[in-house]
């Protein structure tokens, strides 16, 4: 031990400094290695980041497609003067759509009086809205959930149906017609 101390003392100053620098770097690496093992998520985090990157890329692709659509009403059925969506576009628009405006909700409520009652009693409040593409049926489904107290009873009503028309604003798309009959 004494010998190694003496040999260290005999080393030149630049060598000592270099050795110290290497030592500090190793210490930093080791510290981060230990911290990463304790708090880091490793491969799991990388996988999550990849999924998120893919989602962002997909969203950008859909946004590009949405901005290329004509502004106005987009429909998936025949017999109107509105822009008719192809099967491929219908799926893309469905996947890119998140909003359901009030008139679409009011329209769906024509066939669901309970939902209408809860909706109006609670000041047009909606708990949840959803727009989903069904791969099995090859159709777009949209809906909403209303809940509240109606004549002393707590109720939750879910209304859903095929989303058959959308409004394209040029920036986003919104469900315009939910066919729940």
């Amino acid at each position, binding site marked *: 031990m004494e010998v190694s101390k003496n040999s260290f003392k005999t080393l030149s100053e630049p060598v000592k400094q270099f050795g110290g620098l290497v030592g500090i770097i190793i210490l930093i690496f080791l510290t981060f290695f230990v911290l990463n093992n304790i708090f880091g998520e490793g491969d799991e985090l990388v996988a999550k980041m990849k999924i998120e990157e893919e989602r962002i890329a997909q969203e950008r692709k859909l946004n590009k497609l949405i901005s290329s659509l004509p502004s106005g*009403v987009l*429909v998936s*059925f025949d*017999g*109107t003067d509105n822009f008719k969506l192809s099967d491929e576009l219908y799926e893309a628009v469905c996947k890119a759509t998140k909003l359901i*405006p*009030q*008139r*679409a909700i009011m*329209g769906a409520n*024509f*066939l*669901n*009086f309970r939902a*209408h009652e809860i909706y109006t009693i609670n000041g047009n409040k909606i708990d949840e809205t959803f727009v989903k593409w069904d791969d099995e049926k090859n159709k777009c489904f949209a809906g909403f959930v209303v809940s509240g107290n109606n004549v002393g009873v707590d109720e939750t009503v879910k209304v859903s149906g095929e989303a*058959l*028309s959308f*409004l394209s604003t040029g920036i986003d798309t919104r469900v*315009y*017609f939910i*066919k729940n*009959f």
Partner: protein
Amino acid sequence: MKKLIFFILFSSLITSLALARSTGCKEGNCDNGYGKWVYTDKTTYEGEWVATKKHGQGTETWPNGYIYKGEFKESQWNGIGILFFPDGSTYEGEWANGFMNGEGTFTWSDGKQKKGIWKNGSFQE
């Protein structure tokens, strides 16, 4: 900074003025008589008015494609009327308090029909 605040205020003023000009009673008499009212979401009502309420015969057109033609009472769909759904389906018959109530026929866009008594939008088997 002052310029930016002035620009925002000025833009808001212009927008609200433009919005105010495009909504409200656009034609005729919307108090007592026949007139056309345009709502902020572009829903329109054209028909008879009594004491500033939709009352009598009229047509309400929603921006998402629903069209109701028929009788109104106290601004609600009441009486005999026909509702056109955006996909071409229709309900023709009696209405009360804004809902299908009474005798009526629902016709799907493919021609299939359901005829009978309706209560609050539900068919009574």
